[in-house]
Structure formats: structure tokens, C-alpha cells
């Protein structure tokens, strides 16, 4: 139970927020954006934080899901849930196809390859106007039907996204403490040692890549139905970098770190928007300051610092979790 204590706390918080602030824009509207970003960050953290890889193309899978839902529902009248499945199939397939060749790469080369992949996908979104509506994007994506009605209001969306987020977090925490999760983290620690202990590192990396792509694709479908409008700009290289930033900002390798990073990075522009001309500048400065003073990430750094204080009080060495 101790293992999931943080999760239950988080779940209660997520559930209480809209009860406490039912009509607050920051909860029901921005909350949905944050939730979707958090799902993405948690999924990316599986690949980056656990397995120690890097992807600058995560937004592409988000986009594949969104466009699959958008295109199939508006142009071919496919049922939204079927469209979502098709998106998952497409993302999973693409991820599985590119995983083996690309994941042989390391460090900056891997960053480049994933970046290139993301850009290619984005270019297709822009250029294949007939299907995607080109740079202006596509409108009129229907709302998601659920239990005989369609999810329409902000509050309903909050609920849906919250459930998916909680599920994703739960999954991520489960993986951390498992045979497969440790194998991934071993890849992070020393790929060679992992291999000599019987871990098929190529398969492990590829599996987690596909899993994180699937989650991103699912989030993309939700996003498409929630916004009812999508355009390539939302799935470009900047957003991929933003996702990486969320993961690192919160604390690489930590699930709640990823959530935290998503919250901060999504909320910051909403808050800074009052600064007008200074918004960009301040945003950059805040990002730098956090990383300078909490290089482990906001969440992990704070937790460590707190633990350090406790430890110093007790003057006893501490054991860690992740």
C-alpha cells in the first residue's frame, strides 16, 4: 500500500479540485489541457526517464492519434471509438516499425532521429491537405460519445481526462516496480550489463517506445474530440520539446515529476499572459531558474531536499525509492 500512497493522494486531489472549484476556468478548462499534457509527459517519461532514451518526436504520435480521429470521423463518418482504435493501431504500427532501426542510436543521434521523424510526420500533416486540411487544420470533429450521450461540457471532459490520467499514472507507477520496469531502468544504468543479465534491451526499448506512443496517440484522440479542431501546429517540434521539458522540469524518471512538470509548464503561460510583452522573456527565465536551482527537477529536487533535511535531523543514511 505504501507503494501507491502517493497515487491515492493524487487521485483524491484530482477528484476534489472540480468539486471545490466547479466553475473555475483554471480547473475545468486549463485543467483539461494540463491533464492531456500530463498524460503525454507521463508516457514520455516511460521512455525517457525509465529507459534513459530521448525522443524529440513524441508530439508526432499525439498527432497521429488526433488526426486519425479527426480524419476518420469527419471525412468517413467512422464511429469516434473505432477511429480512436484505428489511431492506436496506426501509432503502434509506426512506432514498432521505426523502433528497431532508430533505437540503436544513442544520445544526440537518437534525439536527431526522433526529431526528424516528428518533423516528417508534421510535414505530412501540412502537405496532405486533401486529408488533413493542411496548415489551417480541420474543424468539426464530433464530441466523444460515452454511455449513450456525448461528452460535451468542460466538466465532463475534466472527468474523462482525469480518469485517463489517473490510469496512466497508475500504469506508470506499476511499471516502475516490476521486472519489465527494472529492465528498462537497467538499460538506463548500463545497457551492456543489462544485456549480459539476459535483458533483451532492443526489445525492451522498442516495447516501451510503442507503449508510450500508444498512450500519446490515445491522448491525441481525446484532444481532437475535446477541441473539435486540430491543426499541425499543435503537434510540431516545439511541442515535442515542450514535452521533454515537462519531463525534465519535474524530474526525469519520476512519474509524479512528469505530472508536476506538465502542470507547471501548462499553467505558466496562462499566468504569464498578463505580462504581455514580457511573457516570453519571463517564461524563459523561469525555466532556467528552476533548472539551475533544482537540477534534479522541481518535484524530485524538492522531495530530495525534504528528505535531506529529515535525514540530517536523524543523522542516519537514508534509503531511496524512485
Amino acid at each position: 500500500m505504501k507503494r501507491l500512497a502517493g497515487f491515492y493522494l493524487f487521485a483524491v486531489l484530482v477528484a476534489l479540485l472540480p468539486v471545490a472549484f466547479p466553475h473555475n476556468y483554471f480547473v475545468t478548462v486549463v485543467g483539461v489541457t494540463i491533464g492531456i499534457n500530463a498524460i503525454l509527459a507521463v508516457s514520455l517519461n516511460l521512455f525517457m526517464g525509465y529507459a534513459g532514451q530521448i525522443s524529440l518526436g513524441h508530439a508526432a504520435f499525439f498527432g497521429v492519434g488526433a488526426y486519425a480521429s479527426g480524419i476518420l470521423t469527419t471525412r468517413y463518418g467512422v464511429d469516434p471509438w473505432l477511429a480512436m482504435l484505428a489511431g492506436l493501431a496506426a501509432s503502434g504500427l509506426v512506432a514498432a516499425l521505426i523502433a528497431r532501426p532508430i533505437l540503436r542510436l544513442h544520445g544526440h543521434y537518437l534525439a536527431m532521429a526522433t526529431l526528424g521523424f516528428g518533423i516528417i510526420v508534421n510535414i505530412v500533416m501540412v502537405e496532405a491537405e486533401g486529408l488533413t486540411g493542411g496548415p489551417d487544420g480541420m474543424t468539426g470533429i464530433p464530441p466523444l460519445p460515452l454511455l449513450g450521450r456525448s461528452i460535451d461540457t468542460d466538466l465532463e471532459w475534466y472527468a474523462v481526462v482525469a480518469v485517463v490520467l489517473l490510469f496512466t499514472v497508475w500504469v506508470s507507477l506499476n511499471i516502475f516496480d516490476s521486472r519489465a520496469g527494472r529492465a528498462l531502468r537497467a538499460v538506463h544504468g548500463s545497457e551492456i550489463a543489462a544485456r549480459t543479465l539476459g535483458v533483451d534491451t532492443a526489445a525492451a526499448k522498442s516495447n516501451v517506445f510503442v507503449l508510450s506512443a500508444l498512450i500519446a496517440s490515445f491522448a491525441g484522440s481525446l484532444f481532437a474530440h475535446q477541441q473539435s479542431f486540430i491543426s499541425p501546429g499543435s503537434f510540431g517540434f516545439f511541442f515535442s520539446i515542450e514535452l521533454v521539458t515537462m519531463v525534465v522540469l519535474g524530474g526525469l524518471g519520476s512519474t509524479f515529476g512528469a505530472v508536476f512538470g506538465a502542470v507547471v509548464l501548462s499553467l505558466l503561460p496562462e499566468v504569464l499572459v498578463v505580462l504581455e510583452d514580457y511573457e516570453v522573456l519571463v517564461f524563459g527565465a523561469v525555466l532556467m531558474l528552476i533548472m539551475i536551482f533544482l537540477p534534479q527537477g522541481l518535484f524530485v529536487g524538492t522531495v530530495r531536499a525534504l528528505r535531506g533535511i529529515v535525514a540530517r535531523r536523524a543523522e542516519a543514511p537514508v534509503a531511496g525509492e524512485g
Partner: protein
Amino acid sequence: AEPIRIGSVLSVTGPASFLGDPELKTLQMYVDEINAKGGIDGHKIELIHYDDGSDAKKAVNFVKRLIQRDKVHVIVGGTTSGASLAMIPEAEGAGVPFISLAGSVKIVEPVKKWVFKTPHTDKMAAAKIFEDMRRRGIKKVALISGSGGFDKSGRAESLALAPEYGIEIVADETYNNKDTDMTAQLTRIRATDAEAILNFGFGTGPAIVTKNARQLGIDLPLYQSHGVASKKFIELAGEAAEGVRLPAAALLVAEKLPDNDPQKPVLLAYKRKYEAKYGPVSTFGGHAYDGLFIALEAIDRANSLDRAKIRDEIERTRGFVGTGGVFNMSPEDHLGLDLSAFRMLEIRNGDWVLVE
């Protein structure tokens, strides 16, 4: 009295900032001025604006924020077509009149109950250009365009419209908006039998296309779109800009208009006011002017802050003389401009000259 809350989501930063920036300045300038004079019928105007950073995704949340949190009476804004299209479902759903400042025809075609727009459409620009080409006897045109929404939509409209004017598109090249060199595309165009080149784009692209064409020694007539209708283009393209033609709103040549032109006083007034405060005007700021005053006049006529009544009055706008032309809206036409709103200009000696 309750203030009139005008909401706005603009691309003040990001790639489309050169559009959003003058739009915001224009709105702020007039809102301040009106408030200084005591508002409209005792109602002060409150301008609530958010910057979407040229990201359509952000625009969606901001428009919700305007509607839910700020409870605005009317929305003037949406700088890019993408952002405007993204905002439409929210405005429609909540029933808030929304005057877009973006170019795409898709915003008002098909007509949506709550959605209007002020800028000319790309289709009108293409039509204006083809009209001029037909007059000059040009039959074969090489098209080159950027990769943005504006560019692509312009390209699509041009391709669709060309046959109507008996024009054949013999090349269809594109470039990326941040590309630094277009000689490869122009070299391909040079190898065709095109009689003129048409470039749809904005930002640095058109200036580079213009310069590269000269570098390659291409001396075909070069047409640009209204996307470059600012002095900046002449400055960037330098001598290479000589002879370039483009359709533009009358604002650019306000002083050169005949005195009997109904738009002239409006244009001169806007131009003087804006330039006194911020420097050279652009037509984009003008769209914001048009949007703001169409909204304010509608509110005035409605004599109420009821959103539905405001909407109805916007739809009844007739003979409104704006910077973009004379607007005559109707239930079938939520733009209300015709081709005459565009003027064909040519760059001569580093300045605009009216062609007609």
C-alpha cells in the same frame, strides 16, 4: 453602466506576430481613445486580450477563458485562420458574436450564425490578380507559395480560380516560410514557359523570392499577394521589388486615392493616428479597426449588451466604410466586401503606385 467587454485572442508573438501586433495596437489605441472620451453612451469599453503565440491550440483555451471567465459581449480577433477556425466552435456553442481578423474564406463560408470577418479573402486577392493578368494578356503563370495557412489557402484558391480567367498554371512550387533561399524553385520556374510569376506568402519568403528571381535574371512580371502589403517588403526586397504588383487594401495608398473616394477620409484618419503613435501602418491593423467599429456600431444600434441582438445588428451592417472597403453584410454574407475593396498596386521607385 456595465462596461462593454470586448474579448480578443491575437497572435501577438510567434510566427504570425507581425499580423497580431498591429491588430492589438489598433484595438488598444481606439479603446483608450473612446474611453478617454467617456465611452459609448456611458458604457466604458473593456478590452480583454490574450496572446495565443500563433498556436491555434492555445487560442481554444483563451476563447473559453474570454467567454467563461471574462464574460465578453463580443470577440474581435483570431489573427490566423487556424486560430479563428479553432475558436469558431466555442463562439458558436456559447453564442457570442465573433468577428475574425483572419484571411481564410472557410471562416465565413459556409455562413455560421455567430461568425463574421473583416479581411478580404485570399480568393478575392487571387481574383484581383488574375483580372490584372488578363488585362495584360498573360495566359501562363508560375505559382510559388509558402507553407503556411495563408500561403496554402492562397495557392488553393489560385489553382481553383485560374481557369475562370483563362489562365494556365504551368508551375506550382512551394517553399518553407523560414527558408533562406528559393533559387532552386525559381530555377525550375525559369525552365517553364511561364509569362508571369505569382507568389502567395508573407514574412521573409516573398522578399527572398523577389531577390532570388532577380539574381537568376528572371525578368517576368512578378505578382505578390496582399500578404506583403507593407513598406517592410519594399525595404527588404530593395531594388528587386521594382515592378512587383500586388493587390492591397486602399490603406497603403491612402494619400494617392482620388479625393472623391469614400474611403479616403477614414483611411487618412486611421493612418495618421496609428503612425503618430506606432510607426508605419499595415493593412492588418486596419482589419482590427474594421472589426472593432463594426462591433461598436452594432452595439450602438442594438442599444443593448445582449449578445444575440449585437449579432443581429452586426449582420445588418450596411455601408460601413472601413479601411478594408465598404462593408455590406447580410445573412448570406458575413464578410460583406467585394472585389472593389482591393486595389492593384505596383512598386515604382520604392513606393506604391495605383495601377488602375
